[in-house]
């Protein structure tokens, strides 16, 4: 087994203002190996995007900061790296794409100018060579007529094409790790299918590891090797995708999978629901954070926080997990 490319250990992120501070990410740990795809799923406010921004060293300043824990990329500790060195790593070894490419792309420069700037900075290529590489990347992400499109501005491209250009830019320096935060959420289903296929194909070709952040369990099932499920800043379950969908352990994962509206031959009269709403991070329950919404919660759950434990092929933090017995590891 290859050694991990990225190791995240007990990562804690807090946001503070004059009202006090809230912990948006609480003791998150995971690893990812080269070429692997890891999904991070959860509902709004669960900490999935904050986790990715912390990995990139892009937490909004000065409100957000990593209070403890470590992030190691190929052995290099990132959390204490000076901004100058981090800037060198971002783009070259670690790259990110966002939900709305129009806000991530600079509207006053052409797609090509932005790609060439990145390539020249990180790879010291000549202008000519950088342009050739940029055209090649645009072609690989499925943009028709890349020699022409490279000289267009972001607003001239459709949503799907912009997201492809973003992917081309993010992968142009062949990073070891790509973080994709809801990359297809703003796209139509037919375009989403194209873009996801493109990410998977390029990843296989270039051997890039991918962290895919999404609220859509269907996207996770189709593209990821393994997944983390987050709730209120904590990892509640981590498992290979097959295990996650076949036998979810945490009661939240189980309820979430049941609640997905999916196309089925027989329509149920009522959709299964999770009662209540996600609690405010400033007013978290004392025990398991899912307990107030959980049908299986008892006094133990309301008083103590469960720790992540191995259950079969999964790890879950639940006192009353689904699936009858805890298999030995």
């Amino acid at each position, binding site marked *: 087994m290859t050694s991990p490319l990225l190791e995240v250990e007990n990562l804690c992120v807090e946001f503070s203002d004059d009202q006090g501070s809230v912990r948006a990410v609480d003791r998150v740990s995971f690893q990812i190996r080269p070429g692997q795809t890891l999904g991070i799923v959860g509902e709004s406010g669960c900490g999935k995007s904050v986790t990715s921004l912390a990995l990139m060293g892009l937490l909004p300043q000065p409100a957000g900061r990593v209070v403890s824990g470590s992030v190691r990329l190929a052995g290099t500790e990132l959390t204490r790296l000076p901004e100058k060195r981090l800037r060198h790593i971002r783009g070259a070894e670690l790259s990110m794409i966002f939900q709305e490419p129009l806000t991530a792309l600079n509207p006053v420069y052409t797609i090509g100018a932005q790609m060439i700037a990145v390539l020249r900075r990180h790879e010291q290529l000549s202008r000519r060579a950088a342009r050739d590489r940029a055209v090649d990347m645009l072609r690989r992400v499925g943009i028709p007529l890349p020699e022409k499109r490279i000289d267009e501005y972001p607003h001239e491209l459709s949503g799907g094409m912009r997201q492809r250009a973003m992917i081309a830019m993010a992968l142009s320096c062949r990073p070891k790790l790509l973080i994709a935060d809801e990359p297809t959420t703003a796209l139509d289903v037919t375009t989403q299918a194209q873009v996801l296929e493109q990410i998977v194909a390029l990843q296989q070709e270039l051997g890039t590891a991918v962290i895919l952040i999404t609220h859509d369990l269907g996207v996770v099932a189709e593209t990821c090797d393994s997944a983390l499920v987050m709730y209120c800043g904590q990892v509640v379950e981590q498992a290979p995708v097959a295990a996650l969908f076949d036998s979810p352990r945490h009661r939240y994962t189980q309820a979430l999978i049941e609640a997905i509206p999916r*196309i089925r031959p027989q329509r149920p009269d009522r959709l299964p629901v*999770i009662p209540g709403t996600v609690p405010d991070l400033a007013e978290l329950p004392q025990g398991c954070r899912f307990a107030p919404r959980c049908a299986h919660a008892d006094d133990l759950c309301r008083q103590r926080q469960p720790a992540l434990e191995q259950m079969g092929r999964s790890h879950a933090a639940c006192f009353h997990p689904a699936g009858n017995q805890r298999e030995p590891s």
Partner: protein
Amino acid sequence: MTAAMLEVHDLRKHFPVRGGLLRRSNEVLRAVDGVSFEVGRAKTFGLVGESGCGKSTLGRSILRLIEPTSGRVILDNTEITGLDATALKRQRKHMQMIFQDPYASLSPRRTVGQTLDEPLALHHPGDATERKRRVLELLDIVGLGATARHRYPHEFSGGQRQRIGIARALAVEPKLIIADEAVSALDVSVQSQVLNLLADLQAGLGLSFVFISHDLAVVQHVSHFVGVMYLGKLVETAPVDRIYSLPAHPYTRALLDAVPVATPGDRGKRLVLQGDVPSPLRPPAGCPFHPRCPEAMPVCARRIPRTIDLGQDGQPHRVACHLHDPEIDQ
């Protein structure tokens, strides 16, 4: 007296677009281009399609929130198109709309009680005690407590705000509600709560819905009848079970195929559509879907397909595709 709550006949909404040198070129964007369908009493018509297909414009044209260019809309035997402003205002209480982002459609300066009271005062200027009773009743129907009356929209979560939007739509006792991406901004766990609420309201109050969404799984769950829209036209309409089990139009099949399946290992078998939706300013000649269609024939680039009814047992299943036209030689 017909059975349908809503009838839409050949509705069109064309927007003039000025552009080019000195704004002299006059193009026409056919956002809604000859759409016809019916919605039964206490039934839901699901309207699906990709962004820019005209589904939201269609919803707004039905309510005359934007004025349709031509065509007829009949709500419960009253023709809405052609009503003068006063008469239209009187009919508005029978048809309401729920929007995607409830936060943007609620006034931040008004308490929920004030927001709900406004349509009541407008359409039923009764006494204040009666209106207050009705506000409390509405909050109860949508599952918000009486205390919500004194609170402001920012104090609520996304799902609760959508309940406020629903309560406001119900305030005037409508017959028809047009829900435009009403649950799209909500998290999965909250989305199903709101969908169940809409189902309860339909059963309890006999409401008809036009449910506009890009999410095919949600549409399958809520609809009795489904219409698929592409570049301003309905390309297929059928009862929900039929369209999901036997989709006839290649575009419907591609849409269904593109939905991510929450079952690992099912990937890699699908038909992925190539290209993007063309600009509705210059739709392709012939069938508007032909440049992306995996089954396109030479005739598709030349002739606009007519609508064929494949329905059985009195249940219409209309599809606008040459593949199903017996007069087209394949």
